[in-house]
């Protein structure tokens, strides 16, 4: 390390021999420049991508991460692992952002993008050793990624006419297949959850706009049962109790008053002082207070509501009055939940009792309180009339549930992406191998230095099927070579052949991904290629690191 490190104090004043201070506290800082800097960065990126590479694919392994607060996270999701790892190296942090970017844009493929970036940088290192300028490498990579994206597009299969208004069973099956592929690497009972994810997204999908609003879906978890007990619940699930033990547990045909004002005497925001000095004043004050409570309840009652959902607390007196008036009430419902309740029931959030009118009430088929386990934990389900759904995740311990929640999110994103752009590509690294072959053939016809970069890109793409095969317990080189040879044969017949051959991770005895029904979204694949290339360029362009080394 000390060899690579150069002091920043290189400039010396000629007359006095004292160093010229350029950067504050420069004696304590180190600096690495030139190829050394790039190489160090590449080493950091490689070590991160190495960690993730074993998580790739349906049989990829999980990581246990003990967080700084000593919580345990078990995950297979690239973005989650990277985020929880608490990385220190700046380039490593760049890769964290890379996988987060893939996560927020697409939701799936967060591991693959990091592994690809790592492989690209690995290959770039040997090009640098040959004396090729980093910018030339980056330019070549850009070209290669364009070729790769084009080839992947050729492979894509549109699943449905763009403006079709209905969901055909075939289309739904494709959705389930893609969701299964996304979930397969994460939890054991992928198939069952994939169905739940597809049903959930379809229930909130707007097929006229070709979009699905995932904010209408909530994912809630509760320990107990098994992952297989995970289900899609009509309506909203609140982790709350009904405020008074003697209110009704089940209210059918509920009319909900959704309130953001407490059942308490008003507290104006302006500071004021109410001074009383006589007995009469005291009495009238007491009467006013009483009136506040009875008025509030009366207003709720008059509006025709039979259920009250309130963001704030109730005074004991109000609570008792509500119960006596046959009103079911839930208190301390958080801001996000109360909005969800309003959307699901079609009600309006009312912030003053005076504003409560019958048309502002929400309607629900049923409001039900259920008890779980032996500790008296309650959950309230509000089954609204609109398409608001909750995926209720069960599992044997909280780590399983957290992982299932993350995976479900990924799967639902995949399904949404397919509703937006219903185009699939075969999975099992079929796209990567096809792109790699195309780039190699283009490289053979390129007569300048870019040829080397193109070859390296092709080699980097092979890292994905290799990792897949390795994680699935296959002989990586053998397995990839076989698929390549088969794909090449197809290309001899037709250079634009829509191949579906990939790595047989599940050992089902066929390389045909269409037959195995392993699909990924086109959007995810192209995004992976472009993002990984961009990050590689960024890393290759850094030639100077200044900092606490």
């Amino acid at each position, binding site marked *: 390390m000390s060899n690579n490190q150069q002091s920043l104090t290189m400039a010396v004043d000629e007359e006095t021999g004292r160093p010229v201070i350029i950067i504050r506290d420069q004696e304590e800082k180190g600096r690495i420049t030139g190829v050394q800097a790039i190489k160090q960065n590449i080493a950091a990126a490689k*070590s991160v991508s190495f960690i993730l590479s074993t998580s790739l694919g349906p049989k990829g392994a999980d990581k246990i991460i003990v967080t700084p607060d000593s919580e345990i996270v078990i995950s297979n999701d690239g973005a989650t692992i990277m985020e*929880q790892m608490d990385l220190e190296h700046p380039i490593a942090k760049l890769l964290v952002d890379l996988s987060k970017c893939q996560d927020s844009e697409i939701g799936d493929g967060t591991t693959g993008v990091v592994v690809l970036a790592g492989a690209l940088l690995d290959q770039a290192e040997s090009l640098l050793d040959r004396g090729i300028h980093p910018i030339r490498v980056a330019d070549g990579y850009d070209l290669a990624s364009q070729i790769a994206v084009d080839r992947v597009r050729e492979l894509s299969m549109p699943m449905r006419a763009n403006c079709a208004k209905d969901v055909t069973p075939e289309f739904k099956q494709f959705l389930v297949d893609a969701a299964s592929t996304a979930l397969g690497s994460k939890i054991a009972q992928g198939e069952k959850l994939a169905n739940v994810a597809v049903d959930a997204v379809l229930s909130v999908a707007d097929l006229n706009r070709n979009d699905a609003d995932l904010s209408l879906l909530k994912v809630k978890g509760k*320990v107990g049962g098994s992952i297989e007990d995970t289900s899609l619940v009509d309506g909203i699930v609140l982790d709350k109790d009904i405020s008074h033990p003697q209110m009704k547990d089940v209210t059918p045909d509920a009319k909900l008053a959704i309130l953001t004002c407490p059942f308490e005497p008003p507290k104006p925001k302006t500071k004021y002082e109410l001074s009383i000095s006589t007995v009469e004043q005291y009495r009238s004050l007491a009467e006013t207070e009483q009136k506040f409570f009875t008025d509030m309840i009366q207003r709720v009652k008059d509006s025709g509501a039979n259920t009250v959902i309130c963001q704030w607390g109730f005074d004991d007196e109000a609570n008792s009055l509500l119960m006596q008036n046959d009103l079911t009430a839930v208190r301390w419902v958080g801001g996000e939940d109360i909005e969800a309740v309003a959307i699901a029931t079609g009600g309006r959030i009312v912030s003053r009792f005076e504003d409560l009118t019958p048309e502002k009430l929400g309607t629900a088929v049923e409001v039900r309180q259920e008890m779980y386990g032996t500790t008296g934990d309650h959950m309230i389900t509000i089954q609204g009339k609109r398409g608001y759904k909750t995926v209720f995740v069960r599992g044997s311990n909280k780590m399983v549930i957290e992982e299932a929640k993350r995976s479900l999110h990924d799967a639902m994103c995949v399904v949404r992406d397919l509703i937006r752009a219903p185009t699939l590509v075969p999975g099992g690294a079929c796209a990567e191998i096809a792109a790699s072959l195309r780039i190699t053939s283009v490289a053979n016809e390129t007569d300048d230095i870019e040829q080397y970069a193109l070859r390296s890109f092709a080699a980097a793409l092979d890292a994905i099927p290799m990792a897949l095969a390795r994680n699935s317990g296959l002989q990586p080189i053998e397995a990839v070579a076989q698929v390549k040879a088969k794909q090449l044969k197809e290309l001899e017949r037709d250079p634009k052949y829509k191949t579906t051959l990939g790595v047989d991770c599940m050992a089902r005895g066929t390389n045909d991904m269409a037959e195995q029904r392993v699909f990924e979204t086109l959007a995810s694949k192209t995004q992976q290629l472009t993002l990984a290339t961009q990050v590689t360029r960024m890393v290759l362009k850094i030639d100077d690191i200044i900092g606490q080394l």
Partner: protein
Amino acid sequence: MNVLKSEASEERGEFSHQSTFIGAIAIADMLKTTLGPLGMDKILQSMSGVDSLTITNDGATILSSLSVDNPAARVLINLSTTQDQEIGDGTTSVVVFAGELLRMAEQLIARGIPVPVIREGYQRASAAALAALTESANANDGSEEAFREELFRIAMTTLSSKILNVDKKFFANMAVDAVLRLGGSTNLANIQIIKKLGKTMEDSFLDEGFILDKQISVGCPVDLKAEDPEHPLRVLVANTSMDADKVKIFGSKAKVSGATELAAIESEERRRMRDKCARIMKHDINCFVNRQLVYNQAEEEFAAKGVMCIEHADFDGIERLSLVLDADILSTFDTPEKARVGTCQRIHEIMIGEDKLIRFAGVPKNQACTIVLRGASKHLLDEAERSLHDALAVLSQTVKDRHTCLGAGSSEMLMSLAVSREADEREDLTQVAMGSFSQALENICFILCENAGLDANTIVAKLHAAHAGGHKTAGIDIVNGCVGDARELGIVEALKSKRQMVMSATEAASQLLKVDNIIRCAPRERQQGQ
């Protein structure tokens, strides 16, 4: 190249597997000896002081008091806690079984079988085991009496491993009675367990009425009896402030110019309180129970009218009381005609040991009840409460889902054989993994025998043979040290508990097997004073 922070550490591949196995098996081995009717107890001594020690046989209790660093061990602890919350029983078996599964997996990995294959095998095996278990289950759709008998047997099984073993018939009956009173609810808060030092376990009792561990206010009558059963005592259950009836308007403040005015307001305040008492008494009541404190002034008011007053009954107490007395919990008293006031035949002070408690007798509804535990030492009482709680939990779940299955290692052996039959039909490597799963199930029977000091090898072999020969109800007869019939021995467990055990243990084992990398982040630096 180190990209992690300097204090962080990482275990990869084999090392990570090793750390998982060591951690999980250590936890399972620790609990192993407590499994079964003749399992041993553990003493837990808290780090803070020697005085607070717990003697227990309950898996969840043991594990939740450990502070463990190993991630795999912590997953198993969470598993046990979940089982406790969901079913209340089987907290030991789930961890021991998960441990056995991982122990077998370790051997498989050493033999070179890939992890994905083991996971798939376990998954298949678990499905086969559950199918066999469900098929053997007893639906209990017969008469209520038969169901009560079955509940009694479950309680006996649950209690047999615990400290209440000696008087288990007595306690099993008590638990069944208490749960049947709940009428299908699983809210165990409605069964109050009062622990009082002194006498022996056999002097514990389930009270027909309801006992509140509170005192009657001074000056009030201490024994009220309804003269005529047709006109029972009226009890108002309330949650209201009875110190001073403050006006709850924010910012109000009394500003007076002289002592006379102050006195006037003060007396007005007192009048207001008196008024409230009067309004309460308008409900025509004999007894007033409040969750909050009742101050002297109000107390006097009640005493003067001969109304019994009980203050500071905590929230659970109030809720249970409202359940048994069929009363509303009130906070406003303006509409006596709407309010439901509770009734009972007699309210009196009783002495248990040296403490005074209040007993409500002749209550209309029995949805809540009280169990008074007596015993010679605090530790004994605590353990008795835990055991009883486990029994109550498992019973209340069984009332919801009536299916039961056999205990005494019978279900385990049944599943083991079903899995092994299924394994025989598989041609790939999963066969080996399923075989290991079947072995892990058999190991549970083995541990049961071993803990009872029996010749485990011989008995398990005989049990295996009995099951293979079609005697599907064969189980271990711990008392006689031989193979018997679990159904005849009356050793029954809740199906839900056993199912959950298999499912959870498989899920956790499969989850832990999948891990190939353990990353420990640098602990968050804490600033001083935090």
